[in-house]
């Protein structure tokens, strides 16, 4: 028989286990600019930024298999909704809030299964940068809404440092190159885990930039592309 105390204790341990594994993750930055919504990160072999739906994109820190299963769940939900209603009705708020948050919460609370090791960033492009939306989704199903820009990193402290820099430097009128270099700078701040002014060598070694854009101006059907 599991007592309430055991449950609380094990949930606490699960959180510790997940956070330890997320620490080594490469940060991701999302910026809404005139050209569109930019998602920026550095990665090793495996791709990290994905298209979810026409105006929705996603990137995450965490265990590959968990990232993949979250991604497929989001893609399934978005396409079912888009097909049975309209493309316009597929919003990131509904994907995260209805399709992903509660299953994640359930998985986290179910101490008989392996927890999801994930910290995810979802982006939604709208008409102007002021309307662009970002959702941060945590391993326990909690999510936060951000406007215009957002970032995720391996630790809350790193995220905080990145956000401080973003707040002071973000400008929706930035061109693509300026946004890329700002994102690069912010990434370096987030990847400097012990805040000693240098990027962790484990993150930088063999890593290369991955930059994707949800293009606001294109007339093509597909808005998402890698740069």
């Amino acid at each position: 028989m599991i007592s309430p105390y055991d449950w609380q204790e094990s949930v606490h341990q699960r959180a510790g286990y997940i956070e330890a594994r997320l620490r080594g993750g490469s940060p991701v930055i999302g910026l809404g600019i005139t050209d569109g919504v930019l998602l920026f990160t550095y990665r090793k072999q495996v791709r990290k930024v994905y298209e979810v739906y026409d105006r929705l994109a996603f990137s995450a820190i965490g265990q590959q298999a968990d990232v993949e299963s979250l991604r497929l769940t989001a893609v399934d939900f978005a396409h079912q909704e888009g097909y049975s209603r309209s493309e316009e009705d597929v919003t990131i708020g509904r994907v995260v809030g209805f399709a992903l948050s509660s299953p994640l919460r359930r998985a986290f609370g179910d101490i008989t299964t392996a927890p999801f090791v994930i910290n995810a960033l979802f982006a939604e492009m709208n008409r102007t940068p002021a309307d662009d939306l970002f959702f941060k989704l945590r391993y326990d199903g909690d999510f936060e809404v951000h406007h215009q820009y957002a970032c995720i990193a391996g630790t809350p402290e790193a995220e905080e440092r990145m956000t401080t820099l973003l707040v002071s430097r973000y400008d929706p009128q930035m061109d693509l190159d300026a946004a890329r270099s700002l994102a690069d700078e912010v990434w370096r701040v987030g990847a400097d885990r012990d805040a000693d002014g240098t990027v962790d060598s484990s993150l930088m070694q063999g890593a290369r930039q991955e930059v994707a854009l949800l293009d606001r101006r294109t007339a093509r059907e597909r808005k998402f592309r890698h740069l």
Partner: protein
Amino acid sequence: MRIRPAKSFAELVDFPKSLGPVPPGATEAHGTTVLALRFDKGILNLGDRRATSANFIMYDKAEKILSLDDSTMVAISGSFARSVEIVRYLSHAFKYYARTQLQDMSLEGKLQEVSRALSGNLSMTMEGIGIFVPVVSAYDEVSKKFGIYFYDAMGARFESGAFAAAGSGSERIRGVFDYITRSKGPFDTRPLEDVLKDGMQMLDIAAQLDSATGGLEHVPPLAKTLTAEGIRRVEDEVLASAIHSVTKAG
């Protein structure tokens, strides 16, 4: 969240059941004449704007040329309700595949999916309604080649060389394609402006001989091009000058 093998979009949305039943004897809107013609840089699709139901003109602004994705365009004739719904299904199926599998569906895969969607519609067509016949224009990003394909209502696919037409007015003008090829040279060597004029002429003839096909003057036809860069509507001025040259000559 559960582990599951990759599934197709048809499984995800339970296609073709998701189309729903149509009672026999229902009247439905029909789209009529559409053409697909090669030109030197791609494929031109042209369609009149008329939708009819029995002997009524339902609508004179129907859009019968739709894009499935940036390299695939479809011109529809026949049951309007069914074709629009199936085009929606197909464009979602292509997107879904690309996003889940992280690669674009091959041209062969896309054409096969069109066949399957048509045969999924078969129970309906046996009742004599819901029949529709698409003409698919595609650009293969791998081989860098253009292709025009037409289908019968059961889903059989035929590759057509440089031109294809479908709909009630199409039979009246089929021979004209060959005549133009013989007298002016193959479509795929000629510029868009010339091919557009020929296409307009054929639509005009179809409208004269088929009551269900709308003409050029009342509402201009819809024209779209598929090139390596994607799908675009032909600009109004270009369209107007092509129409003018045809109606003036007539």
